C-alpha cells in the first residue's frame, strides 16, 4: 500500500521514484496522507507467514488501544539464511524473527546492525516460542517411517530444504546428527556418516522450508518430509487430513527460532519504541496463545488453549549446543563453506 506513510522508507522511495520517472511516476505513486501512520518491518523466515499475519493484527490492535497510534507491521518471508542476507544487504527491517540463532549472528557479524548481546536482551534467550522437527508422511505411512534411522533406508526418498539457505533445513540436519550421536555412543564420525546416508536419499533441496513443503505436498515428490512441527500441521489443515499423516519421532531437536531488534535500522527510522514494544508483545499472553494456535510451542504453556497444547506432544528434545558447543562452532563445523554439509555433498556425488 502506498497510502501515505510519512516514514523515512516511504519518503525516500517516493523521492527517488519521482526523480527517476519524471512527472509520470510522481503522478502515479500516490503520496501524502493526512493522518500520521507508523510502519515497522518484520523480516521473518519461511513458514511463519500465517502466524505473523495474526500476531501483527493483534499487535496493531493493542498498540492502537494503548497509544492511539495506528501502526502497520509489514512482513517479508523467505528462507531464514536468505532473509538474513537481505538484512545485511540493507532491507530496512526493524525486527528480525528468524529460524535459527546463527542467522542473527551472521547479521551481527557482517553488518553490525544488531547489538552482539541480542540473545540476552529478551526473555528466554530471545525465544518467544520454540519448536521441533517432526515427520510428515503420505497417508497410512506406506514406507513405515517411525524414527530418524528410517530416513537412511535406500527406498525412502526424503524432502528437506537446503541447510545453506534454510533454517528448517539446518534443524533437520542437526536433528538427524544429534539423534545418531546420542544413539551411537557419542561418536562424531558415525553421526556424520549417518547424516550423509540421509542426504543421499534427498532428490531435491529447495531454498526454504515452504518450498520443500510445496515440493512434497503439491508436487507429490518424496516419501517423508522432516519439517517444522508447525509446518506439518499447516499441511494437514491446507491439504486435508486424508492425504498425510504426522509421525512424531521418539527424540528430536529443541529448535530455537529467535527474535531480535535491528538496532541500527530502528534508530535510523525512529521506530525503536514501536519495534521494542512489538518484540515485548511476542511474550504477552495474547501472543503466546496465538503461537500455540499455529502449533508453535509457547514458553508460557499456561495461557494457551488446552486443545492447542494437546496437539504438541511431549518428545524427548535435545539441545544441539549441548552436543556441539556454541552457535559459532555449530555454524562453522556444519554449514559454512567446507563444513560437514559440503563434505557430505561432495562425497555423495
Amino acid at each position, binding site marked *: 500500500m502506498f497510502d501515505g506513510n510519512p516514514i*523515512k522508507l516511504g519518503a525516500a522511495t517516493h523521492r527517488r521514484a519521482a526523480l*527517476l520517472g519524471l512527472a509520470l*511516476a510522481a503522478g502515479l505513486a500516490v503520496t501524502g496522507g493526512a493522518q500520521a501512520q507508523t510502519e515497522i518491518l518484520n523480516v521473518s523466515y519461511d513458514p511463519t507467514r500465517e502466524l505473523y499475519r495474526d500476531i501483527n493484527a493483534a499487535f496493531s490492535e493493542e498498540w492502537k488501544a494503548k497509544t492511539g497510534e495506528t501502526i502497520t507491521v509489514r512482513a517479508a518471508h523467505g528462507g531464514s539464511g536468505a532473509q538474513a542476507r*537481505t538484512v545485511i*544487504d*540493507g532491507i*530496512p527491517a526493524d525486527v528480525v524473527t528468524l529460524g535459527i540463532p546463527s542467522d542473527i549472528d551472521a547479521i551481527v557479524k557482517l*553488518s553490525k546492525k544488531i547489538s552482539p548481546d541480542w540473545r540476552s536482551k529478551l526473555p528466554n534467550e530471545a525465544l518467544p516460542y520454540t519448536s521441533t522437527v517432526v515427520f510428515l508422511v503420505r497417508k497410512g505411512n506406506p514406507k513405515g517411517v517411525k524414527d530418524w534411522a528410517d530416513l537412511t533406508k535406500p527406498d525412502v526418498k526424503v524432502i528437506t530444504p537446503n541447510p545453506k539457505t534454510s533454517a528448517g533445513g539446518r534443524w533437520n540436519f542437526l536433528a538427524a546428527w544429534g539423534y545418531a550421536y546420542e544413539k551411537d555412543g557419542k561418536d562424531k564420525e558415525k553421526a556424520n556418516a549417518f547424516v550423509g546416508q540421509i542426504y543421499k536419499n534427498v532428490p531435491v533441496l529447495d531454498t526454504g522450508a515452504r518450498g520443500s513443503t510445496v515440493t512434497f505436498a503439491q508436487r507429490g515428490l518424496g516419501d517423508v518430509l522432516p519439517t517444522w512441527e508447525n509446518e506439518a500441521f499447516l499441511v494437514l489443515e491446507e491439504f486435508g487430513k486424508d492425504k498425510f499423516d504426522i509421525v512424531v519421532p521418539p527424540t528430536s531437536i529443541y529448535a530455537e527460532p529467535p527474535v531480535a531488534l535491528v538496532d541500527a535500522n530502528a534508530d535510523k527510522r525512529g521506530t525503536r519504541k514501536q519495534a521494542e514494544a512489538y518484540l515485548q508483545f511476542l511474550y504477552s499472553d495474547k501472543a503466546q496463545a496465538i503461537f500455540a494456535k499455529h502449533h508453535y510451542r509457547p514458553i508460557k504453556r499456561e495461557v494457551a488453549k488446552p486443545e492447542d497444547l494437546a496437539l504438541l506432544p511431549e518428545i524427548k528434545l535435545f539441545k544441539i549446543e549441548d552436543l556441539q558447543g556454541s552457535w559459532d562452532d555449530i555454524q562453522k563445523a556444519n554449514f559454512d563453506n567446507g563444513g560437514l554439509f559440503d563434505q557430505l555433498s561432495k562425497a555423495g556425488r
Partner: protein
Amino acid sequence: MSEALAQGPFASAHGETVRPPASVVTERPLVRWLLIAVALIFLGLFLVLPLFTVFAQALAKGWTAYLAAFSEPDAQAAIRLTLIVAAIAVPFNLVFGVAAAWAIAKFEFRGKNLLVTLIDLPFSVSPVVSGLIYVLVFGSRGLFGPYLLDHDIQIIFAIPGIVLATIFVTFPFVARQLIPLMQEQGTTEEEAALTLGASGWHAFRTVTLPNIRWGLLYSVLLCNARAMGEFGAVSVVSGHIRGLTNTLPLHVEILYNEYNFVASFAVASLLAGLALVTLAIKSVLEWRYADDIAAGARRH
C-alpha cells in the same frame, strides 16, 4: 484427402515420372500432415493447456473467489507497483532506445560496435545476475552502500531498485528493434529534409519518427510485457515486503507458497491476460504493418 491417398504409399506404383514436379521439393502429404499434427499437439500441450489451466485454477472456486483475489490490499499494492514500475521503465527505454538507434543507424562514430554490444548485454545476462549487480552496487555492503546509508536513500529493497532492475532487463527491446529498421531506411530522406532547410529536430520529428512509428509501437509493447512480467531480477532486489515491494509476478509466487492456489492463479491470469492482449496487438501490427516493423523487405 483423395490426393493424399493417390500420393500415399502407392504413389511409387505409378512410376516417378507420373508424380507432379511439386512433390520433388515438398514432403508427401502424409508426412506433411504428420508434421503439422506433431506441431499442433506440441503447441497444445506446452502453450494452450497451461494457459487453460491458469484460468481453470483461477476460477476453480467461482467468480467471487476469483474477484476476491484482487480486492485484497496486498494484491492491489502489487498491481499498483507493477504499473508504476512499467510506467517508469518503459518510457525510459523508449527515449533511450530511440536515441541509441538513431545515433547508431544514422551516424558513424568510434565505438559504435561496442555500444551495440553493450545494448545487447542484458539479453545474454541471467536475470539473477542482473538483480545481484544492483545489490552489489547499492546494497549496504556494496559500492555506494555507506554513502546511501548516510544520506537515507533506499535503492534496493525499494521501488528505485525494482525500477533499475526492470530497466536493465528491458534495455535492449526498443533499440534492438529500431536499429536494423533505421539502418535499412538509410539517411537519404533526412538528408533531403536537411537540404530543404529543416532543423535536425524538425527532420527527426517529421521524417524519422513517422518512418519508425509502427516498429516503435511494436517494440514498446514487447518492452512493456517484459517489464510487467519480469521475475528473476526483480525478485533479487525486491526484498519481498508485502504491500510494499512485491510486484505481480512475485505476488503470484507468494500466494502459491501460501497454498492460496485460487488467488495465485487469479493473479497469474491477470498476467496471462496481459500476455494475450500483447500477443493480439502484436499480431495485428505484424499483419497490418509487417514492412514497417521488420527491416528487410522494404521499399528499396
